[in-house]
C-alpha cells in the first residue's frame, strides 16, 4: 500500500502511536518508494565507484561514512583523477554544505524530551535528503516523543538498502544496457523533486520554484558555494513573498 499510495503516511491515527508502531511506520515508509529509488541511484553509484577504481569495501564504507550521494560522486571522481587531499576535502565539503541548513531544520523537531544531547550528533550523521523530506512531511502529525523512533527506523533502513544498492551496482557494472544505466541516475532527482513538490505550504512551494530555477543558473559561476547561495536566496525569497501575500490579503 505504501508503494502505491498517494502519500507515505495515509489514513492512520497518530495520537497514540507506540514506539514499536513508530518504528514499524519508519521501516514501512522506507520499503516503499525510497527502496526503489535508492536501489536505482545507489546501483548507479556502485558502478561509478568500480569504474573510478575503488574497491568494493571502500565503496561501501563511503556509503556509510559520507552518506551523501553528491559528495560520494565527487569523492570517486577526484580519487579517479588522483586529486590532492586538500582539493578533495574542499570539493567534498562544498558538495555537502547543504547539511548545515538540513540538520538545523530537522534536529529541533527531534530534540524534544531528549535526555542525552550527544545522540543528536549521531542523528546529524544519519540524516539524508530523503529522510529530511520524509520526516518533514510526517512529523507535523506525529507525536513528538515518537519522532526519534521513526527517524532511526527510517534512516537505518534506507542506509541498509543503499549498501545493498552499492554492492549490486558494483557487481553489475557494464551489464546493463546503456539507456537503462543512464536512466538510473535520473530516478533520484526526479523522485526528490516530486517528494518536495508534494507540499501544501505556500512559502515552501514558492521557495521550491525559485530554488529549481536559481540552482542551475548559479552553478556554472559558483560550482562550490552555488547550492548554499541558492538555498539562502531562493528560500528567503519564498519566505518573504509569502509574508507579503499574507499581509496583502489581510489588509
Amino acid at each position: 500500500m505504501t508503494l502505491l499510495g498517494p502519500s507515505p503516511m495515509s489514513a492512520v491515527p497518530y495520537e497514540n502511536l507506540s514506539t514499536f508502531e513508530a518504528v514499524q511506520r519508519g521501516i514501512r515508509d522506507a520499503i516503499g518508494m525510497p527502496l526503489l529509488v535508492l536501489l536505482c541511484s545507489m546501483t548507479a553509484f556502485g558502478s561509478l565507484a568500480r569504474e573510478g577504481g575503488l574497491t568494493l569495501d571502500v565503496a561501501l564504507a563511503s556509503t556509510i561514512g559520507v552518506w551523501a550521494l553528491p559528495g560520494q560522486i565527487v569523492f570517486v571522481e577526484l580519487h579517479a583523477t588522483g586529486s590532492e587531499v586538500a582539493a578533495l576535502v574542499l570539493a567534498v565539503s562544498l558538495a555537502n554544505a547543504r547539511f548545515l541548513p538540513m540538520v538545523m531544520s530537522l534536529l529541533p523537531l527531534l530534540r524534544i524530551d531528549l535526555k542525552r544531547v550527544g545522540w543528536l550528533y549521531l542523528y546529524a550523521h544519519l540524516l539524508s535528503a530523503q529522510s529530511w523530506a520524509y520526516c518533514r512531511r510526517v512529523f507535523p502529525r506525529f507525536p513528538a516523543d515518537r519522532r526519534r523512533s521513526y527517524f532511526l527506523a527510517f534512516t537505518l533502513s534506507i542506509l541498509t538498502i543503499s549498501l545493498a544498492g552499492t554492492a549490486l551496482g558494483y557487481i553489475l557494472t557494464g551489464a546493463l544496457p546503456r539507456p537503462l544505466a543512464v536512466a538510473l541516475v535520473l530516478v533520484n532527482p526526479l523522485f526528490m523533486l516530486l517528494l518536495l513538490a508534494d507540499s501544501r505550504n505556500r512559502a515552501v512551494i514558492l521557495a521550491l520554484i525559485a530554488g529549481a530555477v536559481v540552482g542551475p543558473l548559479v552553478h556554472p559561476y559558483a560550482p562550490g558555494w552555488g547550492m548554499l547561495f541558492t538555498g539562502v536566496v531562493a528560500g528567503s525569497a519564498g519566505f518573504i513573498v509569502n509574508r507579503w501575500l499574507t499581509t496583502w490579503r489581510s489588509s
Partner: protein
Amino acid sequence: MADDVAVVMTPALDTWMLLLAAVGATYFWRGLAVPLSSRIDPESRVFEWMTCVTYALLAGLMSRMIVLPFGDLAATPLHDRIIAVGIGLAAFFVGRRNLLLGVGAGTSAFILLTFTQWGF
C-alpha cells in the same frame, strides 16, 4: 568495461585516508549544525525560514542534477531530460500525487527517448 577505465590505482592505504578526509569534510557541516540548532524553537520564524532555505536548496540541487548533470547523464540531450521530468511531474499531479506513477512515467519516458537515439 570496468578494467579499462580504472587506470589510476592508488595504494589501498591512500584510498582509505582519502575516504577518511571525505568523511570528515562531510561530517563537519552536520556536526557544526548540532550546536547551532540547539536554540532554534520549531515554532519560531527562524525555523520557518530555515525550512524554506532547505527546500529551496534541495530543489536547486535536484534541478542542477537534471539540467547540468555529471557523468554519463550529461551525454543525453537536455531537452530529453526536461521532457522526461515534465512528464513525471504531470503524471504525478494528474495521478493525484502518486509518487510511483510520477517516477515511473518520467523514467520510462526518459528510457524510451534515450533508446530511440542510442539503441540498446
